[in-house]
C-alpha cells in the first residue's frame, strides 16, 4: 500500500514538473508569451471556463456526438460480426473487403460529410461511425473465431439451439475481444468527434478551439486543449472500468485484482 502511495506521489511530481516548466519557460522569455502563456494564466482561463456555461454546452455537444456515433458503430459491427460468423463461407468472402476498407483514413470522408450534412451533427456521426466501426468489427471477428471447436461440437451434440449457442458459448468467448474493440473504438470516436468539429465546424469543443485560435485567445486555446485531454483520459478510464466490471469473471481480469 505504501509502495502504491509512493508511485502516485511520483506521478504527482511529474505533473508538478510539467506545470513548473510551462510556467517558467514563457516567464524566462524562452518562448514568447504569445505562443505559450504561463501555466497559471492557462489555469486561470480554464477555471473561468469551468465556472461558465459555454464550455459545458460545447463539451455536452461533443459527448453527445461521441455517444451516439459510438453506439451506432458498436451495434452495427456487433451484428455484422455475428452474422459473418453464422453464415458459412462468409468470413472468407468478406476478408478482402474488410482488409481494404479498414485502413482507409476516416478523414478522407470529411469532404463528403461536409457536402452531405454541412456543419451539423450528421457530419460528426458519419466520421465517428466509420472510424470506430472497424475497430469493433475486427475484434468481434477475432472473438467469434476463438470459440473452442470442441465446445461448439459438444453444444451441437446436445442439440442446443442457434440462439442458445450464441448466448452461452459464443458471447462469453467473444466478450473480452468485444470489450477491447469497444475500448479502442471509444478513444477513436472521441478523436473523430473533436476533429469533425475542428475541421467542419459542427458545434462542440473542437469548434470552440477553432474560434479561440482565430480570435487570438491563446490561453483559451491551451485551456480547451487541456479540457480535451482530460476528457480523453476520463473516457479511457470509464471504458476500462466498464471492461473490468463486465469481465470480472474472466481470468485476465481476475488475475489483476489481488495486486
Amino acid at each position, binding site marked *: 500500500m505504501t509502495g502504491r502511495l509512493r508511485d502516485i506521489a511520483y506521478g504527482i511530481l511529474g*505533473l508538478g514538473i510539467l506545470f513548473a516548466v510551462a510556467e517558467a519557460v514563457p516567464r524566462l522569455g524562452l518562448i514568447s508569451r504569445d505562443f505559450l502563456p504561463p501555466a497559471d494564466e492557462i489555469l486561470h482561463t480554464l477555471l473561468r471556463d469551468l465556472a461558465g456555461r459555454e464550455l459545458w454546452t460545447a463539451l455536452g455537444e461533443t459527448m453527445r456526438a461521441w455517444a451516439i456515433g459510438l453506439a451506432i458503430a458498436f451495434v452495427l459491427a456487433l451484428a455484422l460480426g455475428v452474422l459473418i460468423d453464422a453464415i458459412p463461407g462468409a468470413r472468407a468472402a468478406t476478408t*478482402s473487403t474488410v482488409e481494404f476498407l479498414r*485502413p482507409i483514413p476516416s*478523414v478522407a470522408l470529411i469532404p463528403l460529410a461536409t457536402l452531405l450534412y454541412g456543419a451539423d451533427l450528421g457530419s460528426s456521426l458519419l466520421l465517428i461511425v466509420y472510424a470506430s466501426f472497424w475497430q469493433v468489427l475486427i475484434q468481434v471477428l477475432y472473438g467469434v473465431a476463438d470459440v473452442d471447436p470442441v465446445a461448439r461440437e459438444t453444444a451441437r451434440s446436445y442439440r442446443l439451439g442457434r440462439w442458445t449457442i450464441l448466448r452461452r458459448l459464443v458471447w462469453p468467448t467473444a466478450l473480452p475481444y468485444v470489450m477491447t474493440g469497444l475500448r479502442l473504438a471509444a478513444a477513436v470516436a472521441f478523436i473523430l468527434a473533436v476533429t469533425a468539429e475542428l475541421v467542419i465546424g459542427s458545434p462542440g469543443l*473542437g469548434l470552440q478551439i477553432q474560434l479561440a485560435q482565430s480570435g487570438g485567445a491563446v490561453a483559451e486555446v491551451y485551456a480547451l486543449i487541456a479540457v480535451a*485531454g482530460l476528457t*480523453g483520459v476520463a473516457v*479511457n478510464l470509464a471504458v476500462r472500468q466498464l471492461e473490468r466490471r463486465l469481465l470480472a469473471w474472466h481470468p485476465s481480469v481476475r488475475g489483476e485484482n489481488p495486486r
Partner: protein
Amino acid sequence: MIRRMTGLPLRLVRLLALPVALVLGWWGYSVLSPSFYVPSPTRIATAFADVWFTRRILDDVLPSLGRLLAGYALAALLGIALGVAIGSYRRLRLTAEPVLEFFRAVPPPVLVPLIMLVAGLNDTMKVLVIVSGAIWPVLLNTVEGVRALDEVLADTARAYGLRGPSRLWHLVLPAASPQIMAGLRQALSIGIILMVIGEMFASTSGLGYTVVLFQRGFQIPEMWSGIVLLGLLGFLLSLAFRAVERRVLYWHQRETHA
C-alpha cells in the same frame, strides 16, 4: 497438384466476389437513381485518371507523402529513444506516466491550430503536426515493451557483462520490438490522418488541400477520386507496414505460431 488447381480459382473467387459485387451494386444504384453526390464508378475512374495522372502527382501527392514519411520517421525515432530512456528507469517512468497518459488522450488534431500559431504555415508545421500525434503510441508502447523485459534474460545479459550500446542493441530493442511495432502501426494511421488534416487547415498544396478544393468547387467526381486515392494510400501503406513487420518480427511470429 489437382488440389492446387481447384484451390487457386476458389481463392480468387473468394477474394474478388464481394468487392466486384459491391462495385456493381454501386454502379447499378447510380444508374437507376442518379444522384449529384454519388456519381457512378466509371465517372469516378475517369476523373481519377484525369485528376491524378498529371502534374498533380509531382505537385501534391509526392510532397504530401514526403512530409508524412519525414514526420513519421521523426516520431518513430524520438518515440523509441525517449521510450527506452523512460522505460529503463522505474522512477522516471512513474514520474512521467500521468503526463504521457494525458498527452496521449489529447485528440491529436486539436494541436493543429496551436502548431500553426507557433510554427507558421509551412512544411515544418505540417511535419510537426504529424510528429505531435504519431509520437505517443510509439513512446508509450516502447515504455511498456522495455519495462516488460524478461528478468531471466536481463540477468543472463548482466552475467555475461553485456552493457551499454550492445545491451541496448542485442537485448532491449529486440525484446521490446513486438510492442514497438504495435505502436508504430498505430502511429502510421494517426500520421496519415494528420497529414490530411494539416493540409486541410491551411495549405495551398497537398492531397488534403486538393480534396477540399474539389469539394468547395462542387467537383463531385474529382472529390470522390481524391477520397479513393486517400483510401488506396491508406491501404498500400498498411500493406507495406505489414511486410516490414513480418521481416522485423520473423523470429517472434515463428515462435508464437509454433
